[in-house]
């Protein structure tokens, strides 16, 4: 499908034609990732960088699975900054970018 921010080709390959499995994975993604995103933002607000890094670490494989290539590097950078407790000003921008892409992905996936 054109103009989507996500790419389900990796998921489709895994599903091997099992459409129910794809739908179930999309539902799980829509159910869990918004909470993880909120936790990520809150950890940043609280200045809890190690927790921010751990949440970024958890979200990372799912971002890869849904082909959200706009933020695959960004989420890794956040993970690394959290792990190293590097309180850099660009963290805020990076989280905003992750937030924006994920929100758009949620909307598009709900409408698919």
């Amino acid at each position: 499908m054109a103009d989507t921010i996500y790419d389900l080709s990796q998921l489709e390959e895994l599903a091997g034609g099992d459409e129910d499995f794809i739908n179930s994975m999309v539902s799980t993604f829509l159910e869990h990732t918004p909470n993880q995103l909120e936790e990520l933002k809150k950890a940043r607000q609280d200045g809890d960088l190690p927790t921010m890094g751990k949440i970024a670490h958890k979200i990372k494989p799912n971002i890869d699975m849904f082909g959200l290539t706009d933020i695959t590097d960004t989420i890794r950078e956040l993970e690394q900054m959290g792990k190293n407790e590097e309180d850099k000003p660009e963290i805020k921008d990076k989280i905003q970018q992750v937030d924006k892409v994920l929100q758009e992905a949620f909307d598009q996936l709900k409408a698919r």
Partner: protein
Amino acid sequence: MKLLKIFVVEDDKLYAKGVEHHLQLNSDNDVSVYPTGRACLGELYKEPDLIFLDYSLPDLSGIEVLRAIQNSKLSPPVVIVSGQEDVSTAVKLLKEGAYDYIVKDENARERMWNAANNVRENAKLRTELEQLRQELNYKYDFSNIKGRSEVLQKVFKLVEKAARTNITVSITGETGTGKELVAKAIHYNSGKSARPMVTVNMTAIPAELMESELFGHEKGAFTGAQARRVGKFEEAHESTLFLDEIADLDLSLQAKLLRVLQEKEVTRLGSNRPVPAAPRIIVATHKNLAEEVKQGRFREDLYYRLLGLPIELPPLRERGDDILLLAQYFLDAFAEENQLQGLKLSQEAREKLRHYRWPGNVRELRAVIELSAVLCSGEQIEASDISFPASGDDWGDLWAQNLTLRDYTRKIIQHYLDRYNQNVVRVAEKLDVGKSTIYRMIKNKELTLK
């Protein structure tokens, strides 16, 4: 082939789902997912064959769970799955005894798939190695079937012929005549000897479980089917399946067995997908299968499908001096096992063995000889050291044989003749029958004097 029981310990529901789906593409994997370390540790009694363990769990650290698993009874291989591409962590975990370390990247699922295949292959090799070790303790060459009698030489020739091809073999013979030994001799001298022979005894498994035992089932196929199970037919694919006491197979399953034999594939209970199952078949029974067909207890079409090369094993009492040869063989083996000096049989002991009817055949002979070796004092076994089991004849199941009165009479008199050293006068007195009756029956060859 046993199902590989895999635990996936992963708190990210989405990732866990993806892994579970991927691993279950192989129907020989039985995958369970646990969201915490404690949940996994609480289920270790289910004896998983492999555990994929996420390094970052909400309750316990990866290393704590790894150590707890290693301290468990079976200590299955643990593959750490982590999002961190951190070499020092990986090295540390491998040193702690982790089976492998997989990074959650685009190749992770493929590597998990390969890890499961490796563990399965290793488990299979270990099982086969163990079975082959056991087989080596007891070589199944033809010389293992002891005996020089003419009737047994005929059997040897058939066994050799059977081993050269994949023809179905049906072995008949009384209990204890060595049907399984002959089946193994055929298998381990055939082109299929690289894999272990798979044996199913039709009388050892309840009828309601036999279908699943032979053909396998899927998880949830019936109440109590908690996991997928591979049936013996599938397990014996490209090997030999030995169906012992085939006459006792339930009639309803006989039709399914026939279909599997014809189509060379099997469909597990609860599945629609047939899988190849074309083992070489050897069947055995102590019953007369043709008679079972006549009585309507065995399907005629299956009978002809299974008949193949028939091999009839002679009862021990018809093998002449094989009795003494086997007796000395068992005696030597027992002496060696128990570090005893070479034991010999006295002339009277040999006569006693020769004149007994051996309803339990070679199996009974072995038991009698081993007992006599224990009871004897000195290096020679006397007749008095030899005692036969209380039901050491076919007396116990006599009533189940549905004989005519004449046949019962014949059996009873023959039994007493054997017991009283063929002394017709004494037997006539004991049974209160006329001597002339016994002599007439001997003349008519209804009774035999030895």
